[in-house]
């Protein structure tokens, strides 16, 4: 079920009303409803893969309980690795099997040996990368004794399958989300209204910004050999906004929906395109994934401790793994590697934690230096996105090569005026709201309620009239 579908528009109010009716009954009824609703939500796409979620839930629940009883370090390690191998095993099979087989065959043929390829026609279960990481965080935290294992299997199943963030995150930590299933949720009017506001902004980002940008970026990327440099640059910029609108829009809808049910999820995007350097960008982009890798991979590897070479190695590992997490294609790995290269000078010169505050926190406009920093960072990310979007590395290199010729100074062949205007309004609202958790959180609160409602109505009308052709959420494929 997509958040931007009629099905979800019917599903959500039904679950919402049932959920709050159950408030008068014991907590487990509400949790049970969440589990059922989440399975319906997921099964809407393909019910066969529900078995994977149920299996993963039962495995990690049982391992959690066993970890509590087991005191011997070796036995505990064995349990932890069992969980990791099972979860990563599923992920590896469904997502990376064909990639490894293909590359294995290519590598052998390079050395002159032809071997028979046995790739399979595998369907990638939606959201597997997200819920796998979520359940892993539980087992690892229980192993590290940061978290008490749960004895409530329904609460745990609700935590693993919680429908707002099941298929595309944010990847919640067990330490944050699981305890919320133990406490009775009370309906809170302002929280719910905040949730609706965040859903509205998420829908605007997805339907108006991402879907419209997608139309043009797809056209340009699919026919890049036919266009001038300036058009190719525009195509890459459109893709940058497409992926931001798509993914952060999804996160906003997920967080907003969770709020309607009394849950508090972590912020996943913090206005990343206003970052002044790449390090800041990665503190603001897909925060739940970056912090997951930081806590469960980067820090165990030694993090920023040790020699410079160790630090550089760790940075590369983290970015390459992060790239590979996105998909079984070399383009994602190169995208990760390129970002590591961008990060490197900041690490070497110890400039990676310079910009930790919000840009222009005390003023309306950025300083010239901040503006230049934002512009350069945005340009670097746009170039990296070309690898992310292209079908192959050679396509991406060709695209970038074609970016830099004399036609960069010509007018782009494609000039959708309405989209430029929408993007301008979008950036403006995001800039004004950059100090908040999401752009719409507080910016119009000073106005009387009827005025606010009218502004929200205008946003709804804009979504309806200016929505682009429906596109699947990009991150569903990860």
């Amino acid at each position, binding site marked *: 079920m997509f958040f931007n579908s009629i099905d979800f528009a019917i599903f959500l109010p039904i679950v919402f009303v049932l959920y709050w009716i159950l408030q008068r009954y014991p907590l487990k009824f509400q949790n049970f409803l969440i589990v059922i609703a989440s399975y319906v939500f997921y099964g809407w796409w393909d019910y066969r893969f529900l078995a994977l979620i149920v299996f993963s839930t039962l495995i990690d629940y049982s391992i959690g309980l066993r970890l509590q009883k087991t005191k011997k370090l070796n036995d505990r390690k064995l349990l932890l690795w069992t969980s990791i191998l099972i979860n990563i095993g599923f992920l590896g099979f469904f997502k990376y099997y064909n990639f490894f087989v293909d590359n294995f065959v290519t590598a052998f043929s390079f050395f002159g040996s032809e071997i028979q390829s046995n790739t399979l026609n595998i369907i990638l279960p939606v959201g597997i990368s997200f819920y796998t990481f979520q359940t892993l965080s539980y087992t690892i935290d229980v192993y590290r004794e940061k978290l008490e294992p749960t004895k409530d299997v329904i609460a745990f199943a609700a935590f693993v399958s919680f429908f707002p963030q099941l298929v595309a995150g944010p990847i919640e930590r067990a330490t944050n989300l699981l305890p919320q299933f133990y406490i009775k949720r009370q*309906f809170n*009017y302002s929280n719910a209204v905040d949730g609706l506001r965040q859903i509205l902004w998420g829908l605007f980002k997805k339907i108006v910004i991402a879907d*419209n940008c997608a139309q043009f970026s797809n056209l340009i990327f699919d026919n890049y050999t036919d266009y001038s440099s300036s058009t190719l640059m525009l195509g890459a910029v459109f893709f940058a906004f497409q992926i931001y609108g798509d993914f952060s829009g999804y996160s906003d809808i997920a967080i907003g929906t969770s709020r309607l049910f009394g849950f508090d999820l972590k912020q996943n995007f913090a206005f990343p395109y206003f970052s002044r350097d790449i390090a800041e960008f990665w503190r603001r982009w897909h925060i739940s994934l970056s912090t997951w890798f930081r806590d469960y991979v980067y820090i165990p590897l030694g993090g920023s401790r040790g020699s410079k070479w160790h630090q550089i190695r760790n940075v590369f590992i983290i970015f390459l793994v992060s790239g590979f997490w996105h998909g079984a294609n070399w383009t994602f790995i190169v995208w990760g590697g390129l970002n590591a290269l961008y990060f490197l000078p900041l690490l070497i010169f110890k400039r990676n934690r310079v910009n930790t505050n919000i840009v222009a926190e005390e003023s309306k406009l950025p300083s010239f230096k901040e503006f230049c920093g934002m512009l350069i960072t945005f340009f670097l990310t746009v170039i990296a996105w070309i690898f992310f979007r292209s079908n192959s590395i050679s396509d991406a290199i060709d695209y970038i090569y074609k970016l830099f010729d004399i036609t960069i100074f010509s007018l782009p062949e494609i000039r959708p005026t309405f989209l430029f205007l929408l993007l301008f309004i979008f950036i403006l609202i995001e800039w004004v709201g950059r100090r908040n958790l999401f752009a719409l959180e507080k910016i119009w609160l000073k106005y009387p309620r009827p005025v606010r409602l009218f502004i929200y*109505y205008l946003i709804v009308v804009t979504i309806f*009239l200016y929505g682009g052709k429906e596109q699947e959420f990009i991150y569903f494929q990860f």
Partner: protein
Amino acid sequence: MKEFIKTTGLFLSVCIITVLGVFYLADNRTDEYYVKLTTPKQSSLIVGSSRAAQGIQPQYINLQLSNEKIYNYAFSRVHTPYGKAYLNSIKRKLNKQSKDGVFILEVNPWVISSQTKNPEDSLNFKDNNSFAEVVKCVNCNPNFEYLIYCYDKSYRHILLDKIKTKNIKTNVDVNGWCEVEFLKNKTDSFDKIHSQTIKRYSQILNKYSGVSETRISYLERTIKYLQQYGTTYLVRLPVSTEMLEIENQLISDFDVRMENLSNKLNTEYINFMMNNEKYNYIDSHHLDKKSGEQISKYIAEHIKNN
């Protein structure tokens, strides 16, 4: 909680009213297909691809029909090749009370071919997801099913006046005929449009896996079904010689197949391809208005004499 539901409900009601208001404005200028799915059920139909949609003009045929008027229910090669989806849509559109209808089935190699790897892989035919399959009510006005699930533009286009692309303006007539007008000051030369179309179709040809016996069997079933309600005619509209060459690469024995089918089902096959150079085309395979008129009159005369 009550306050929340009340305010949200009120707000959503206003939004839904706005949406409905826009949907009620949808009309024959919304896109090339919408209005055809809003008109009443019909006793006589023209079916086929976009060549028929804009090439066969019902007003000239209707001059020769005594009772029922013919309606142009042809769409496009992509949305309505012969198959299960289009047959079901035709069944829905047909007024089954009349038994003396006239049915013109436009045929060409594209509408009996397939883009799936295996041409008989009917589960993966693209038209399975087109409006022909999705829209169950083909005479509802406004047609919410179409607008919600199948309309592939932004809804602001419903409010904008005309279906206008860079070079052409389209208008769907009350009888289903799709009139295409070139905006003269913006129009590229015919030669340029012609060469672009030929180039595009040469590429499209590579996406097709060839003739589909499944589609031919559906064409056969469509003819048999319509014969229960009147007389059927198979028509091949003309295209330019270059386009014909591409089509011959797709199905070299197309005419033989159609003649066999017409003999088998006792229906007439009118093939305009013999005189294809007599007609003018706007893009190498869609007839211009004047040639469409000539052909429509010829078909009308033919129906009258039979």
